[in-house]
């Protein structure tokens, strides 16, 4: 498919000196070939970008448009947004919906909860995934059985997991509080206490995602050359030392991938707090104990449908704020990745290579 830019297709006869036409042809073919080499890859990946433009970019831009309008689910577009009584202004402004959202205590509570749940779930989850992967990487009997086992919770539908956990964490009839009652400990107010509710939701998240991350880390671990481990054993490293000094440094790129995907997923957390909500109203708890940003945006857009209220406009504003937060985190992660890739990863690998050689 790609023409070789230098190989001529004519029989090789020594070209007459200074044959301008031939030279031009050759040069043109070279240019075409170079163009081809440059362009073809973009054409091959263009289907992705076309699909992305359709399913990602267009909604993104359209949401930005809606965020500047007084958009109601039922009555539709009602003109440029107005902030209203909340910020004491009735002037139309394309930032009015954003102003309104930033003036809502609910939004800040949601932001606090999102970060809290994200930290409580992601950090223990990745540590657990790393340890589990290290164990699964060892010489076990019935390897496949154990490896499939860690993935099982991931296969369970999020709503199914949430239903099971909401029964475990029910305040009065729940499994945990019943058990605590037996041993004489006062019950934990899972839905009333902010931190308790975050721990409960984080445990649902960890239940589902630890196995998934374990398998990704395991796959990366399997790609580490065995002789590196052998060398470290010869050097007298124990299992823990091996994990800290050999496995983790060599896992860096994969770890970064897992951290980034967990960050994006964690900041968009929705299913678990939604299902953790008791009953059918008051999403995120009566005092917004576990309202997350995604849950807030959904509640705003699809449950508050009073005519005259620009519910979709405000919801779109929340969506954009969430988008910006996730992008900010992605950039921080990207910078971190570059630092680690240039400073940490490569020398570490060289160092081990040297060790192996020795």
């Amino acid at each position, binding site marked *: 498919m790609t023409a070789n830019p230098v190989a001529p297709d004519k029989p090789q006869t020594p070209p007459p000196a200074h044959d301008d036409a031939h030279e031009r042809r050759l040069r043109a073919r070279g240019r075409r070939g170079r163009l081809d080499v*440059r*362009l073809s890859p973009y054409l091959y990946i263009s289907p992705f970008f076309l699909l992305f*433009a359709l399913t990602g970019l267009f909604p993104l831009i359209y949401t930005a448009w809606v965020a500047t309008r007084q958009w109601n689910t039922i009555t*539709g577009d009602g003109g440029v947004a107005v902030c209203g009584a909340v910020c004491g202004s009735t002037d139309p402004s394309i930032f009015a919906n954003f102003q309104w959202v930033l003036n809502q205590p609910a939004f800040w509570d949601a932001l606090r909860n999102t970060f809290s749940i994200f930290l409580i779930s992601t950090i223990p989850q990745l540590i657990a995934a790393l340890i589990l992967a290290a164990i699964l990487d060892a010489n076990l009997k019935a390897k496949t059985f154990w490896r499939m086992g860690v993935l099982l919770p991931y296969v369970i539908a999020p709503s199914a997991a949430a239903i099971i956990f909401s029964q475990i964490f*029910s305040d009065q009839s729940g499994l945990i509080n019943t058990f605590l009652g037996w041993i004489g400990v006062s019950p934990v107010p899972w839905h*009333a206490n902010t931190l308790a509710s975050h721990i409960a939701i984080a445990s649902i998240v960890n239940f589902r995602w630890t196995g998934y991350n374990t398998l990704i880390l395991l796959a990366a671990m399997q790609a580490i050359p065995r002789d590196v481990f052998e060398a470290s054993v010869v050097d007298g490293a124990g299992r823990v030392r091996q994990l800290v000094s050999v496995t983790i440094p060599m896992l860096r790129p994969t770890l970064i991938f897992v951290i980034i995907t967990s960050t994006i997923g964690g900041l968009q957390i929705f299913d678990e707090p939604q299902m953790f909500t008791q009953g059918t109203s008051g999403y995120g708890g009566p005092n917004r104990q576990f309202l997350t940003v995604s849950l807030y945006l959904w509640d705003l857009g699809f449950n508050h449908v009073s005519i005259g209220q620009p519910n979709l406009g405000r919801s779109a504003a929340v969506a954009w704020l969430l988008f910006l937060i996730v992008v900010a985190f992605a950039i921080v992660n990207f910078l971190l990745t570059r630092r680690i890739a240039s400073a940490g990863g490569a020398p570490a690998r060289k160092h081990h290579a040297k060790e192996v050689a020795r």
Partner: protein
Amino acid sequence: MKNATRKGFGAVAGAAVLALAASACSNGGSDDASGDTTDAGGQVTIKVSTFNNFGLGAPSDTRPGADLWAKYEAEHPNVKIDEVVAASSDDARAAFNTAISTGTGAYDIQAVDVDWMPSIMAQPDAFVDLGAYAGDNDWLDWKKEQGTTPDGKVVGLGTDIGPEGICYRSDLFAAAGLPTDRAEVATLLGGADATWDKYFEVGQQYTDATGKAWFDSSAAVFQGMVNQIEYSHVDKDGNVIAGTNPDVKAAFDKVTAAALAGQSAGLQQWSDDFNAAFKSDKFATTLCPAWFINNIKGNAGADFTGWDIADVFPGGGGNWGGSFLVVPEQSKVKEEAAKLAAWITAPEQQAAVFAAASNFPSSPTAQADPSVADKTEPFLNDAPVGQIFANRAKAVTVVPFKGAQYFDIQTKMADALNRVDVTKEQSPQQSFDQWLQDVKALS
């Protein structure tokens, strides 16, 4: 080199724009949920959206029903009915709002809960006038009023109503030394002159005697109270009066005082704890609209004994829930859909639904039908539920006005009550103040 790259991006971007334009065109042209409903043989498919259990379809173990679709299809061989059931009215509402706002994708017949009826009545032009189709049907005056615009356009046809009695646990009453016979219980709570004060007074006796809760949830009881206030959160011009209405504050104070005195089981409505409590001894009474009997039976188990119902309601009659059928103008088969909606809400069909699934008819003719009037409920100790709910429906004198903002404000009120009663993190005054802030934020 640089140029070539840029050209490449340009081509990609251009193609993307083209693709977008093409998709936009095809969307506008053909996407319609109710498209292609009539085939060559004149066969018509009517798509119906309902939620919870309207009792219209074929009965199953978990969902009692009167099998009305099969009956209608047998009488009208050219009609095929396709019912889609949403798990909750919230789910149905979200899908419905999207369909109406985008102008596509609505079902031919939509079931609408009374709490979101105001948003329908605010835009009558989007719906078919069903008055001409439902000429022979009759409804209670207030039910008909809720579905009719001021200038007489019939937008919604009433299905059921939710007249409320008091369901109580006769075994727990006996243990507390209270009467257990349903007529005596009605008298105990004040009979025809029952008031909320009397209800909480008896509740205090029960709680003092047993140390157990009297009612299930503050939010549930408040709902019963607020449904007796004609203008609660919104006045008739649509102004929000929630913060200044003394009736709302008085109801809030009464309920929270009773809750803090130990009368509430501290359960959040529809939560797992709430559902599980119907087979425990956690509370002795609950407000009981007709359709709620299915919920109690489902939560407690059909073989559970002890639940009974008294023909009484504090503060006069009360209505909780009840639905309507509407036909969106965008339907491709609105003629046929309107005919079906009128048939479903005719007295005979409403009576059949009550017999099968406990949803109480809004038609006086259906209420007088022997299959309704003489119905007894084995689960409630053979209570004559047909008679009791007919009396309860007659006692409803106030039709609460629910303006556009009502639903949101009431949701926030439930949160406020739950902060005092369920999570116990705030005093009534703190919680009420926060509610005022929440209401302000709803502007």
